[in-house]
């Protein structure tokens, strides 16, 4: 809205009611987004007894760190963390390199196979082999129980390739290519010397999209991984949070003598675990969210 129009506008009575409704809706929505998160944080800092008696509603009751102590003593969780960091780092690196390369080639209008490659990529957005054929193929490639089953199959996302292509086309001036040509530069030199340095924002968009997908996914590990030592964090979380497989026998907290307390503690542990596993993402996302927004916006331009 134009600044002049806004300044000249008086807020009428009707508009006040309308704005009131708008803010009410936004308020309710934001509170319902935040409440579950606050609730989990508060539970994680409460005492096991207060939690199990359903006394935690908004703020921690009888605050303590017992849940966190139990989490930090659980070796499985840290192994999962380590595996996830490795899978995410390797997968993001491979995915980003392949995606930006494909995006660059497709951004060149003179590339003869452009339409054919675009079609081949687009089809993958709507159709796939399905669970079993893919599983058998991965098995055939001897990738079961290796990091490759997790990082390779999703390494080229057609959507991100198209987002990258649109970005390169719209933000890197064609004159730069002509200048490179005049200097006797080749396509590969243009890619490494000009595109890559100038495409940093889109590299961030692509890399972060792959990273969050890999960090949060459990599906491929569920299907392809059977060796517990290679489980990523999300599988460990599923075992403990959803399937209640928690082993407290090794917990060094020696005062666990009653069965009941043990059970209470295993419930409390879940809240602390939710925080320990989600806090890194939630702490970082306000600073990187612009790259996700950018991805959606560039993707929308393409339609």
């Amino acid at each position, binding site marked *: *809205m134009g600044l002049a129009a806004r300044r000249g506008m008086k807020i009428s009575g009707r508009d006040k009611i309308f704005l009131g409704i708008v803010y009410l809706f936004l308020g309710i929505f934001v509170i319902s987004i935040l409440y579950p998160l606050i609730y989990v944080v508060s539970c994680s800092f409460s005492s096991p007894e207060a939690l199990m008696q359903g006394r935690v509603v908004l703020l921690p009751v009888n605050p303590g760190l017992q849940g966190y102590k139990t989490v930090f003593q659980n070796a499985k969780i840290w192994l999962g963390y380590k595996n996830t960091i490795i899978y995410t780092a390797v997968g993001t690196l491979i995915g980003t390199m392949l995606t930006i390369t494909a995006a660059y080639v497709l951004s060149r209008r003179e590339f003869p*196979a452009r339409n054919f490659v675009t079609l081949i990529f687009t089809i993958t957005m709507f159709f796939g082999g399905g669970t079993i054929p893919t599983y058998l193929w991965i098995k055939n490639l001897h990738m079961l129980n290796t990091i490759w089953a997790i990082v390779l199959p999703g390494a080229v996302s057609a959507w991100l390739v198209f987002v990258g292509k649109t970005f390169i086309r719209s933000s890197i001036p064609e004159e730069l290519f002509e200048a490179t040509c005049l200097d006797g530069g080749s396509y590969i030199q243009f890619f490494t010397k000009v595109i890559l340095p100038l495409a940093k924002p889109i590299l961030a968009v692509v890399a972060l999209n792959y990273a969050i997908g890999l960090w949060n996914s459990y599906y491929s590990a569920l299907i392809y991984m059977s060796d517990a030592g290679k489980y990523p964090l999300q599988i460990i979380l599923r075992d403990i949070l959803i399937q209640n497989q928690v082993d407290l026998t090794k917990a060094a907290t020696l005062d666990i003598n009653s069965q009941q307390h043990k059970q209470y503690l295993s419930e409390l542990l879940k809240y602390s675990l*939710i925080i320990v596993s989600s806090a890194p993402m*939630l702490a970082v996302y306000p600073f990187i969210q612009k790259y996700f927004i950018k991805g959606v916006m560039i993707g929308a331009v393409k339609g």
Partner: protein
Amino acid sequence: MKVKKQKRYIQLYLLMAIPFVFVVIFNYVPMFGITLAFKDYSIRKGIIASPWAGFKYFRQLFTIPIFPTILKNTIVLSLAGLIIGFPFPILLALCFNEVKRARVKKFLQTLTFAPYFISTVVVVSILFQMFSYRYGVVNSVIKFFGGSAVNFWGEGGFFRPVYILSGIWQTAGYSSILYIAALSSVDTSLYEAAAIDGATRFQKVLHVDIPCILPTIVISLVLSAGNILSIGFEKVYLMQNPANYTTSEIIATYVYKTGIEQAQFSFSTAVGLFNSVVNCIVLLIVNKVADKISGTSLF
């Protein structure tokens, strides 16, 4: 010059080679594995040498007693999710658009974005805790107001509402970006013209904002409708327990159980293929209808 250029294209082909081979290996080779659905697969013989079975596994699918249930569950869950969940991001974007203070807007938007960064496993776990029968906060509140505790996970009736509402919680903020972007590109002269005509803010939303973002709305609707049968396996599978199978068993979870858990490879592939084919048909129909009604379509 011409020759030199042709030579240069080789570099483009070389660069494209690796991503292209990746797509062929990991997306297209499995597609040929779909022939499994028409074969009696045996591990020893492999896909190619296994004998043909025709439509045996599709007939088996259509005659098993659970088929109507999983088909209905899949359709109801995604259709209800679409109808209830689809308007939320639009409403959210329209409201954000009324917040003129950039900082407040940015702050609120950031908050609504948070759940997108939380993994499905954690989201389902939070649901389990909050709706727990024994000590969940929802039941604490119900008991506080004099009601008796509800066993949300002990029967099928609560699966769909909990699934759909938590889905809105997870994605409404993220999905609203698309509409916020569309709204930010509305021509300001339209607002000025509306102001001259003495339009109220609500009338501007009705007669300027909504018509301007209608194409975006239609395209997302077509895309979502095209995915009517492909609800994410992950969340449903995590929320499932024997007590809510009556509403929570969907095609995707059935494919996983028959295929990965019970190793009925051919049958499971047939189920998955049935799912994809229905999806494609729905996408084409909805696209056609959208084209007829509003002139906007995917292709």
